[in-house]
């Protein structure tokens, strides 16, 4: 918060301030880490109790206790090991560096870097989607519609991407990007406008807009549909003039310039929220809409703006994924990412940097889970479960406090969204 907006605190409160701040920082770091750790432990337990061999070993525990324990450790180790290697491949990278130092060229290192780059690549849409939810949270709105907004953003950008021809890249690419951003903004802006002018709760309306987007997309993308190819249920490929460039030419490495766009947007959202008048108003509306209204802020207009900006961020998530990674759109595009984004925002305490870190973690987990599925036959949905548990632990810190016997936090605050359903 900037100096100008902080009211000068009384003298004794000033003395107490550093201590409060310290526990807050500790909570902001410690709780998310413990939440993710605990969720992963429960995920491991779930893997174990759904594994026939492990369950059998434990049923005959007294015949062979060491064997049961070994099998347990092996199963978890295999699953999470595959996840870890599939996501980071640290061993491979070290070998690659070794090869490079021995003068064997950079080829081995480049291949070893593919999993890590893929983790970063998978983080990119998470960063945007997480920012979308966090931004709305800051304004006191719950944007649960990231799913639909991403889909609309992707569809808009892919349409401009393959339909507009004969343009140089420096016109075509921005055009396709703007289309995706605008699509997401409009999709969410409708929800914001409905809230502002009729009082309809944004949560149900965003969910309805999600389903409308999904049904529309299944119509647009079905074989022979308006946006699809005549033979397969996907859109034609985006023309290379609208590609967001990938930065490496190693096969399988999809790391792209969108990552840096994401970092820039993290800074931009931080600047808007904490350094601009608009951001101050947004946070004020989020903290207390009534007080904001009495201080002369047009809350209704701001609600629409908050949703539209949030939607444009989610639309960007879909747009970047389309123009940089997939370069076409098929049915089932966003696959739950709009919901994962809620966990990201909570995990990052609605702060852009926190969201960035959480998104890097989730991108890594998701990428690793794909490998885990192929190596250890554990469905990737385990990550969805872990994400749900993370939300629970962040939203109810008492659970974490009880498990790890932590002292009570000095400041209890959480956003409140449950305020009646509609007009």
């Amino acid at each position, binding site marked *: 918060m900037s100096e100008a907006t902080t009211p000068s605190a009384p003298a004794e409160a000033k003395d107490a301030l550093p201590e409060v701040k310290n526990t807050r920082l500790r909570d902001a770091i410690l709780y998310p880490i413990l939440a993710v750790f605990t969720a992963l432990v429960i995920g491991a337990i*779930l893997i174990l109790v*759904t594994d026939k061999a492990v369950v059998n070993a434990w049923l005959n525990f007294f015949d062979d206790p060491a064997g049961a324990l070994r099998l347990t450790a092996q199963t978890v180790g295999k699953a999470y090991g595959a996840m870890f290697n599939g996501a980071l491949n640290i061993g491979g990278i070290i070998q690659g560096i070794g090869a490079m130092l021995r003068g064997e060229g950079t080829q081995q290192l480049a291949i070893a870097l593919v999993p890590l780059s893929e983790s970063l690549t998978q983080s990119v849409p998470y960063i945007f989607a997480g920012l979308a939810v966090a931004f709305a949270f800051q304004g006191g709105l*719950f944007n*649960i519609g990231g799913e639909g907004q991403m889909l609309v953003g992707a569809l808009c950008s892919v349409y401009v991407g393959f339909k507009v021809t004969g343009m140089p890249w420096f016109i075509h690419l921005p055009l396709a990007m703007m289309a995706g951003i605008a699509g997401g903004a409009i999709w969410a802006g409708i929800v914001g406008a*409905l809230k502002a002018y*009729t*009082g*309809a*709760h944004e*949560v*149900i*309306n965003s*969910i*309805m*807009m*999600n*389903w*409308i987007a999904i*049904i*529309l997309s*299944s*119509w647009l993308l079905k074989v022979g549909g308006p946006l699809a190819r005549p033979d397969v249920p996907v859109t034609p490929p985006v023309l290379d003039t609208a590609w967001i460039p990938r930065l490496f030419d190693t096969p399988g490495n999809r790391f792209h310039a969108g990552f840096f766009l994401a970092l820039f947007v993290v800074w931009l959202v931080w600047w808007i929220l904490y350094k601009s008048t608009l951001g101050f108003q947004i946070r004020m509306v989020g903290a207390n809409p009534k007080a904001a209204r009495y201080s002369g802020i047009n809350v209704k207009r701001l609600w629409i703006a908050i949703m539209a900006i949030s939607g444009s961020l989610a639309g960007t998530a879909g747009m970047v994924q389309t123009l940089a990674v997939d370069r076409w759109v098929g049915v089932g595009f966003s696959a*739950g990412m709009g*919901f*994962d984004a*809620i*966990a990201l925002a*909570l995990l990052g305490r609605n702060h852009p940097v926190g969201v960035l870190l959480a998104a890097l973690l989730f991108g890594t987990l998701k990428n690793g889970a794909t490998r885990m599925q192929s190596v250890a036959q*554990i*469905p990737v*949905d*385990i*990550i*969805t*479960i*872990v*994400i*749900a*548990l993370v*939300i*629970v632990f962040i*939203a*109810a810190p*008492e*659970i974490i406090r009880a498990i790890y016997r932590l002292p009570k936090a000095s400041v209890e605050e*959480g*956003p*409140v*969204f*449950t*305020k*009646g*359903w*509609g*007009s």
Partner: protein
Amino acid sequence: MAATTAPIASIGSYAARRERRKAIAYGVFFLLVALAIFFFFVRNSAPGMESTFKLNPTTKEKVIQLGDLVLPTYQTLLVLATVVGLLGLYQIMRGFKRVVLVLGLVALLFVFAFLVWAVRDKSINLLGILTFTVAAATPIAFGAMSGVMCERSGVVNIAIEGMMLTGAMVAVIVASISGNLWLGLAGAVLISGLLGVFLAILAIHFRVDQIIAGTAINIFALGITSFISQRFMQPNPALNSGGVFSKVAIPGLSQIPIIGPVFFNQSPIVYILFLTIIAIHFMLFYTRWGLRTRAVGEHPSAADTLGVNVFKIRYVNVIIGGMIAGVGGAYFTIGSVGRFDEAITAGKGFIGLAAMIFGRWNPFGAYGASLIFGFSDALQARLQVLGKTQVPIPSEWLLILPYLVTMIVLAGVVGKTVAPAADGKPYTKD
């Protein structure tokens, strides 16, 4: 005095002017509907066409047979357009007292006009549509009842979707293993009740924001059902074939024309729904527990002062709400298709929530709203059968209808809705 009364008078006339403008807006809307019927339907049909509505069940049951309802398409549409137009004119000139009811009537007439036009020179089994409506409304209504139970006691339950999804999966697994559909149903009720416990602990004990708690449960349900489905049900299809409750005709009642086959020749789960609706209505408005539930939902601290155990009431209501959602979930699998697919509930839990709001937190109102949503489902399924030349609208557009209707309802176009005053507010005992 004069200085203070003048602005009040002007405010009064301002309010009156606003009322008047709103009334005219309704009238103009009715006129637009009349024009829409004329331009889209009347002009696309010709004199001599006939629309046939069959009123007898296709299955061989003993009911009193009725003749087919055969309407001259063109003339019927013309009459409908005129009636709606006249309603609009009257609304503009004089104004109806209860305009919301007229709005409902206009919507009904429009849908009827659409049907008459869609089946021009063809026939459609109206009874089939209505039967399907009741079936499609069933899971939505269970969701709505779950919502009524929870929200009347002041706990928002947006986890209905997740509870239904989990219930749907557990029902089919238990039914497949045990070979007994009723055990499957019990399993669904049990697991959804457990999720209800979970929601109650988060929302009541930990005072987590109820929408976040519900969202977490929804995501968890999506994850765990997909996980189990992939890990166990796909490699082992025997786990995913629980069978389906067969329809049971209630003797006597099922022989009433139209109403009989529509309401009283259905799956047992539909009858459970009817009983649930009546039970909740009775419980809420005629028992001590219901009075306390409503008191806790409206003003928990007042109820607490009078010795009502707020936490106990909320816990019990939320858990029962979860169990009701479970029955609705079971309907998706062992009530209709007999197998579980990932995300099979497709947002019906949320539509149930909308039905609850539309029905103003009343069991019967919520069931009426569920029937409207069910009807749009049924319409979509039937019109797809009629074919493209008959109805040149992509069937997906009709699939959007329930979601669109939900948004319109929430926007308050159909009148104001007032939630229980303490809905969503965690209670702290001081």
